[in-house]
């Protein structure tokens, strides 16, 4: 609490000057002022003490012909309340707020009429400036407001995207049931409604802040003098704003604004489409009529039921308003020709002298005349969405003030009340609810209460006391009726205390001066004083709603957490899945290769049992034997003849015998090379089996290939992989390098069996060389030699066959060893696991065709949800107040 000296300094200067002197910020100053006024205003009129002798002094001044005035830096209304409250108001010709010079000039100006000063111009200058400040302040708030609107629109779109993403995930056949079940509970409708409401409120706020005028709405039941009031304020006449007796006259919502320079009306016109949508469609809906006309001609010939002839027995047709609404619709239809040319859309500027025909209902005279003449009633107002009227106000030259004429409450028109509320919310800062005490209606009735209820809705977050003034139109009514109405309002509306909830002003709507003094001045004062607070209230209320909406969206996004958390273990990332599949691929390959190697190992144990090998050896043996028995590759006779000739020439058998034994030895050895066909087949078989073990696990990688081709392709793929697999490639290439042939593998093992096919042999006991056979160069000798060579050849062939059969294990060993080495390197080498992963990464889509497309798609669906959720949360966090 400041000390007395400091507090004393507050007396006198405006708060806006004094409070910052105490160190308050602008915001704190506003809050302090609002708090002060909130408590002080209520008691100022009744609890302000008057210095003794002041009334008497003022009386003397008046008697002396002086005209005292109240000049204050405080709110003018407050000064007036106090002056009135302490009972000295009759002494003053002016209670005003302004600069000293203005006040002095006003006080010196001769009085008109009652002799008091005309105080409107002076008051309004001050008010106008204050109102302009408020309007300027509002405009400053527009950019962030529009940014926030944009954010909320984004949030709405983002929530839509999240909803679409969740639905796409939920509805996809590949989504796990548990996740689908969780996602089924995700419902965005409430949150989107909240966003829609937030946006609506923001648009209302935007509309409020966008206005370049302060708008006073004039509302009330039909025939209470609204138009008369407007005429008094605007200076317009019946030629522009009709007033009538008994019939509603104002058909178009109009905004009337003071302009020192122009007199004109700007009409916003319907197109046929907006006419149907805004005017016709609600009637159709209310009347239960299906379909809508698409063109004027269709509307013109639209078949509407005749009132009273509708045979439907439902409630719609039975309502009293049904016939009224149907009649109005038919009237529109009948008059289409009179306004169809006006359904142009856009704006049309007309002179004020043309205004009436666009805004007024047909008068009774016009209706009668048309009926009498069988003519068409003009209803051009149906083509007008609204009107903006600019003219010179006679009494109140406030540039930034507009009077909004709202269609009459209680009219039997479709959506009239909702339309009314919308208009109030969007366009007005304060409402004058006009009430006139006519005979039989000089009380606050149910319709009036409903009107207040509507205004209560329309005020939004503004305080009702700030938003609504009750205006008792005294014009043309008896004082008693006025008293009755006034009293009834005090009782019904303000619970017996004047202005308790709503301020009540009274004026003769037809008297511009009275209207000015009794209505406009206090209302404008009120606005100048309270608009900032009202704006703050609206902003705060809106903000609270926005927070609630944002919380709802955030909560909805948070609801997805457990569902999304359950996703990870189910499908995981592609990398994890690939690792898992690669590991399984390696395991499966191991299983198949181990089985294959085991089988080959078994074959090594039963190699001689291999019927194909035995058959191959037997075939080679049979071929050899056939060669031998057929005459050692020539024929027996020729052989002997040649032998005999040679031996005779040589005079001995040595050379021929030696050469023939050598030739036979080579031939036998060569003839067993026929086994290579078998060996080639066996190697190919090994490749086939290895490829057959690999292929099924490698998807489309080796599709259409088998055996050697498959392995060669695999080696190429391993070498050419985006992540090369050199160890695996070498394993495959080593397998492809396996060779199995008689000459290199078996011949060395069985070579000794051919030793007998030499002329010279080593004596097994002495170690000395020994000539196996010597024959004479005779027929008998060559015969003996032939038999010897044949026997030796047959024995050598037999021993070779026997050795081959006993060595049958060798091919099997080679194949087994090759397969085992392949398996070892492929599966058990240190690089195996790493290179399998490389292979999998390089050929993922070939090895598991379609799998990762689906996983990618599934993850994309999940990622879409996550992304949408995160984007949404980020937007919420970026909002004022930072929702997350």
């Amino acid at each position, binding site marked *: 609490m400041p000390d007395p000296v400091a507090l004393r300094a507050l007396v006198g200067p405006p708060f806006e000057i004094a409070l910052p002197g105490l160190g308050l910020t602008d915001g704190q100053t506003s809050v302090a002022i609002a708090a002060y006024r909130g408590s002080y205003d209520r008691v100022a009129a009744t609890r302000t003490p008057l210095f003794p002798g002041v009334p008497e002094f003022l009386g003397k001044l008046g008697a002396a012909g002086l005209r005292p005035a109240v000049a204050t830096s405080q709110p003018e209304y407050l000064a007036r309340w106090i002056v009135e409250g302490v009972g000295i108001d009759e002494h003053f010709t002016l209670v005003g707020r302004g600069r000293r010079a203005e006040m002095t000039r006003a006080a010196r100006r001769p009085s008109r009429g009652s002799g008091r000063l005309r105080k409107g111009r002076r008051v309004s200058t001050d008010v106008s400036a204050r109102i302009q400040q408020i309007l300027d302040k509002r405009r400053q708030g527009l950019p962030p407001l529009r940014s926030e609107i944009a954010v909320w629109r984004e949030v709405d779109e983002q929530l839509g995207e999240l909803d679409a993403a969740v639905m796409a995930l939920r509805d996809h056949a590949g989504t796990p049931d548990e996740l689908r079940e969780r996602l089924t509970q995700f419902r965005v409708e409430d949150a989107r409604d909240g966003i829609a409401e937030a946006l609506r409120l923001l648009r209302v706020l935007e509309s409020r802040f966008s206005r370049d005028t302060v708008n006073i709405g004039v509302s009330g039941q039909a025939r209470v003098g609204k138009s008369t009031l407007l005429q008094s304020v605007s200076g317009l006449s019946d030629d522009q704003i009709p007033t009538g007796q008994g019939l509603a006259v104002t058909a178009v919502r109009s905004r009337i604004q003071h302009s020192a320079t122009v007199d004109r009306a700007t009409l916003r016109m319907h197109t046929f489409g907006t006419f149907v949508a805004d005017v016709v469609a609600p009637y159709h809906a209310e009347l239960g009529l299906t379909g809508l006309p698409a063109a004027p001609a269709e509307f013109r010939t639209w078949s509407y039921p005749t009132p009273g002839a509708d045979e439907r027995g439902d409630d719609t047709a039975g309502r009293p308003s049904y016939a009224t609404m149907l009649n109005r619709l038919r009237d529109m239809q009948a008059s289409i020709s009179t306004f169809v040319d006006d359904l142009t859309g856009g704006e049309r500027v007309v002179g004020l002298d043309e205004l009436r025909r666009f805004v007024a209902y047909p008068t009774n005279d016009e209706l009668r005349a048309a009926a009498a003449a069988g003519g068409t009633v003009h209803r051009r107002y149906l083509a007008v969405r609204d009107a903006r009227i600019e003219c010179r106000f006679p009494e109140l030259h406030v540039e930034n003030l507009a009077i909004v004429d709202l269609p009459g409450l209680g009219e039997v028109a479709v959506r009239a009340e909702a339309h009314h509320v919308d208009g109030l919310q969007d366009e007005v800062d304060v409402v004058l609810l006009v009430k006139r005490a006519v005979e039989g209606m000089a009380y606050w009735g149910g319709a009036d209460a409903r009107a207040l209820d509507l205004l209560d809705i329309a005020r939004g977050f503004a305080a009702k006391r700030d938003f609504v003034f009750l205006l008792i139109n005294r014009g043309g009514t008896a004082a008693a009726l006025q008293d009755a109405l006034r009293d009834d309002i005090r009782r019904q509306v303000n619970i017996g205390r004047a202005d308790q909830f709503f301020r009540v002003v009274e004026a003769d709507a037809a008297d511009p001066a009275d209207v000015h003094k009794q209505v406009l001045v206090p209302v404008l004062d009120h606005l100048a004083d309270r608009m900032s607070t009202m704006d703050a209230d609206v902003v705060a209320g809106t903000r609270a709603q926005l927070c609630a909406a944002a919380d709802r969206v955030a909560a909805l996004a948070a609801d997805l957490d457990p569902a999304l958390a359950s996703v990870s273990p189910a499908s995981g990332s592609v990398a994890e899945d690939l690792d898992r599949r690669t590991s399984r691929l390696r395991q499966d390959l191991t299983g198949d290769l181990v089985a294959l190697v085991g089988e080959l190992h078994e074959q090594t144990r*039963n190699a*001689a*049992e291999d019927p194909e090998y*035995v058959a191959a050896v037997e075939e080679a043996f049979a071929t050899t*034997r056939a060669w031998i028995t057929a005459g050692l590759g020539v024929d027996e006779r020729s052989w002997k003849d040649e032998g005999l000739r040679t031996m005779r020439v040589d005079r001995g058998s040595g050379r021929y015998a030696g050469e023939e034994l050598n030739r036979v030895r080579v031939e036998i050895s060569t003839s067993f090379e026929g086994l290579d066909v078998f060996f080639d087949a066996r190697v190919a078989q090994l490749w086939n089996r290895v490829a057959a073990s690999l292929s099924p696990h490698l998807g489309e990688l080796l599709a259409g290939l088998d055996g050697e081709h498959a392995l060669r392709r695999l080696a190429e793929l391993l070498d050419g992989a985006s992540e090369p697999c050199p160890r695996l490639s070498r394993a495959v290439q080593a397998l492809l390098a396996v060779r199995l042939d008689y000459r290199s593998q078996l011949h060395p093992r069985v070579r000794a069996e051919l*030793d*007998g096919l030499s002329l010279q*042999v080593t004596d*097994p*006991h002495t170690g000395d060389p020994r000539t196996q*056979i010597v024959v004479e160069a005779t027929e008998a000798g060559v015969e*003996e030699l032939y*038999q*010897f060579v*044949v*026997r030796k050849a*047959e*024995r050598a062939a*037999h021993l070779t066959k*026997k050795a081959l*059969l*006993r060595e*049958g294990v060798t091919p099997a060993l080679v194949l087994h060893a090759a397969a085992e080495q392949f398996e070892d390197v492929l599966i058990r080498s240190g690089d195996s696991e790493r290179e399998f992963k490389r292979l999998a990464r390089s050929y993922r889509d070939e090895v598991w065709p379609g799998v990762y497309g689906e996983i990618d798609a599934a993850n994309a669906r999940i990622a879409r949800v996550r992304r949408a959720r995160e984007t949404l949360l980020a937007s919420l966090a970026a909002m004022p107040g930072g929702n997350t």
Partner: protein
Amino acid sequence: MTDTSRLVYRIGMVGPSRVGKTSLITALLRGGQHLLEGTPVAMKAIGSSTQKRLGQHRRDLEGSLLAGKFRPGALGGTQEKFLFHLLLDPGVPDAGIELQLLDYPGGWFDPVTRPPGADWEECEHFLEQSSVLIVPIDAAVLMEATSATHLRVMPSILATTQVGDVVRSWLTERKRRPDEPGLLMLCPVKCESYFDDNGGDRDDSEELLTWVRRLYHDVIDAVPGEAPHVRTLYCPVDTIGCVEITGAEWTPEPGDPATLAFSAEYGVRPPGRQAIKGADDVLMALCRHLVGARQRVEEAVATEKGRTATTAERYAERHEGFFLDIWYVLNGERRYRREAAEDVRGAAVEADKRVTALTEIIEDLASRRPGGRVRQW
């Protein structure tokens, strides 16, 4: 036992038909004749059936040798009992040692597989009397097997189960005669292709030995447990000598494809003269067995000093069989000596000399070192 002084030396033989028993007996005869050349003792087949059978075999063999190659009949099939009679003849009537070799089918031993009418009791009695049992084995079956299938059918082809049954039965009988020496001889035949000591150019004898031990291990291992006093000898025999195997076939039996029949083809080494090898080892083993038995009897009689000859005879009779035969032989010898001492005329003296020479030759043969092929277990 006859009332002559001829020792009947009963030798059992067990093995499938065509395993080479006739070839073995022929080889024993030819080998014996070869061994006894230059001595007063001759070896010959006696009895027309033996002579006929051996004669036919010899003719067949000579024909094959002349043809340069031959293929013995496949082993297996049914078989009749046959008793071969060979004689070590000192040239003295009713003297000498008669070798009786009984060849009977192994299947007869099992009552289930024994054909009706088979004279099994005689076979049984013969076996009881035999202190020697020869098991001829076709070496080619063992050596030419190249596959597990061959190994699986090998016991069937060689009838090793039946052979084993007979051997164990024979061992049981030997067990009842612990004082009487027993001799079991495993004799692979047709071994020419697997030794290089008889014209062959390769030595696969160790492999053959391994196969025999592997296939007949039940028999070999049964001896120490059943009849420790029985000697087991491994005596491979080249029954022809001048041949070598040039082909082998394992063909399914027509009626039983799961069973294979084995046949081998042999080529004849020039000049195609039979060169039996190993039969002498068999004969020498038989001689050692005879000598051993005789020494046992003599020792037994010596322990009966002071007793009468009747007592000694009763001892011999108590042992029956081979020992009784030996007793009679000893008596016969004593008779010849007595007669020679009493009759100084030439005939008696000559007879005594010949009988004595036979004994000496037997003892000489018994004392020779067996050949390198022989193994004793």
